[in-house]
């Protein structure tokens, strides 16, 4: 298993849509390295012939009949939105108009 560098932490932070200052990056690098080092003990296990468990019950895709049901009213859905606008969720502009 690998160890993690400050560059690695910055890369993962970007993937996770988080940002850290220099000091936080350093702290996270040290903490994650220590946790990953502990997790490295899994390498003691021979798992070549072991199948993975993603879920404890033998569930497969569960489909529902395609029937229209009542949804929450629009107002209720938007009631928690930080900046609702004309019945929609709004976000900062993503299309450059210039």
């Amino acid at each position, binding site marked *: *298993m*690998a160890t*993690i560098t400050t560059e*690695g*932490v910055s*890369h*993962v*932070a970007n*993937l*996770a*849509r*988080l*940002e*850290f200052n220099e000091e936080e990056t350093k702290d*996270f690098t040290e*903490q*994650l390295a*220590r*946790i*990953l080092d*502990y*997790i*490295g*003990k*899994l*390498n*003691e*296990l021979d*798992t070549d012939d*072991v*199948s*993975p*468990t*993603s*879920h*404890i*019950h033998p*569930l497969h895709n*569960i489909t*529902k009949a395609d029937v229209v049901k009542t949804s*929450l009213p629009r107002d*209720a*859905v938007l*009631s*928690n*939105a*930080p*900046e609702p606008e004309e019945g929609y*969720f709004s*976000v*900062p*502009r*993503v299309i450059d108009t210039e």
Partner: protein
Amino acid sequence: MSLYELTAHELHDKLKAREITAVKLAESVYERIEEVEPQVKGYLTLTKEIALEQAGAADAGFQNGNEMPPLAGIPIAIKDVICTKGVRTTCASKILSNFVPPYDATVMTKLHQQGVVMIGKTNMDEFAMGSSTENSAYQLTHNPWDLETIPGGSSGGSAAVVSADTAICSLGSDTGGSIRQPAALCGVVGMKPTYGRVSRYGLVAFASSLDQIGPFTKDVTDCALILNAICGKDEMDSTSVDIPVPDFTQSLINDVKGLKIGVPKEYFAEGLDTEVADCVHAAIAEFEKLGASVEEISLPHTDYAIATYYIIAPAEASANLARYDGVRYGYRTEEPEDLINMYKKTRSEGFGQEVKRRIMLGTFALSAGYQDAYYRKAQKARTLIKSDFDAAFEKVDVIATPTSPTPAFKIGERTADPLQMYLCDVMTTPASHSGLPGISVPCGLVKSGLPVGLQLLTAPFDEETLLRVAYTFEQNTDHHLQKPAI
């Protein structure tokens, strides 16, 4: 004896006999809250107005002579990770500080059908990530047995309020031990049902393949009553399992003769507090005296459960918590530069350190180049851990262990080192990986006066044997009657 000290089943008898009213009972609980909540700080939100209205409705039912459900009029506290329609649900996070769910979790709908009285929402580790409730963005909860110690976590508030008699019972959630461990540390009964027994609809997701809702109660009878109310298949949660739900009160049988109890040697290894070990050994001896047979067993992959857990749970969390982006609900940063910057600032300002740490850990474990070495490896280790239990339950009916390797520790003692905190879950995560039902019941006090929990585990969906064994223990001992001096 004050009303707030009683159990739900004792109170039901009094309500039914019309010796008391649900309004008087709710008022008794709120008086107790005024008295001790400033020291315990188990609640994030109190819902007195709603509670008194619900109590009034229950009283109307009792007065009309209706056959009322066992939990009608019973004051209950709800962990702040369970969505309550119209009542703020924060997950003890800044990012959900203003979130008011427009719907009820399925467990809430079911409890309302019983006519419960909701006292308030309880404190927890942010997004249920932690073992001491110190990761709450809002407040520290103090263990009623010693206010300088932690109540355990992540459902620390739900455990502390039952222990302090500021609720008759409560709901929590357990991902890697978050019901069982705080129940042990606060000296109450706490149960995680089999994964799939209880709908997760409306439970804010942490690690979806592990999360399960369950009760905190003052005794095993109340535990059975709450299970009766909340279990069952739900269309809204496709991982809830469609198997019949028995009447769990039928399992309250004071008899363990002929049952085989397995004691896994790996749980009594280095790191286990000797006084905790003594209490648990005494409990096991009690079972032998009561006619159960006890044998040592081995669960050889126990030592890998924490490492496995701290890949699987953060990996699932990193995906589940992607939804907090400042768009549809919760906190949004002010004056972002653009969309990506809005996401980053919102999340960095809204999440606490432990949540960020787990999102980072999970994102790393799922990232290109590392997924096989970490996530896939952990899923395979999970299979081995589960196989240990499958083999053990071929031989024994129940497994008995300590719930936590130590009693409650001092506030602040383990916050500096995340890994030390993670190791608190060493006794509870193996069963979580395997989806097993588990209960923690009080089994004594250490010399300093702090409670110790006995963890009992059975095969999936065998809550009936679990309750029977826990009930028998309780009927033949008085540990559950011990109360903190607060």
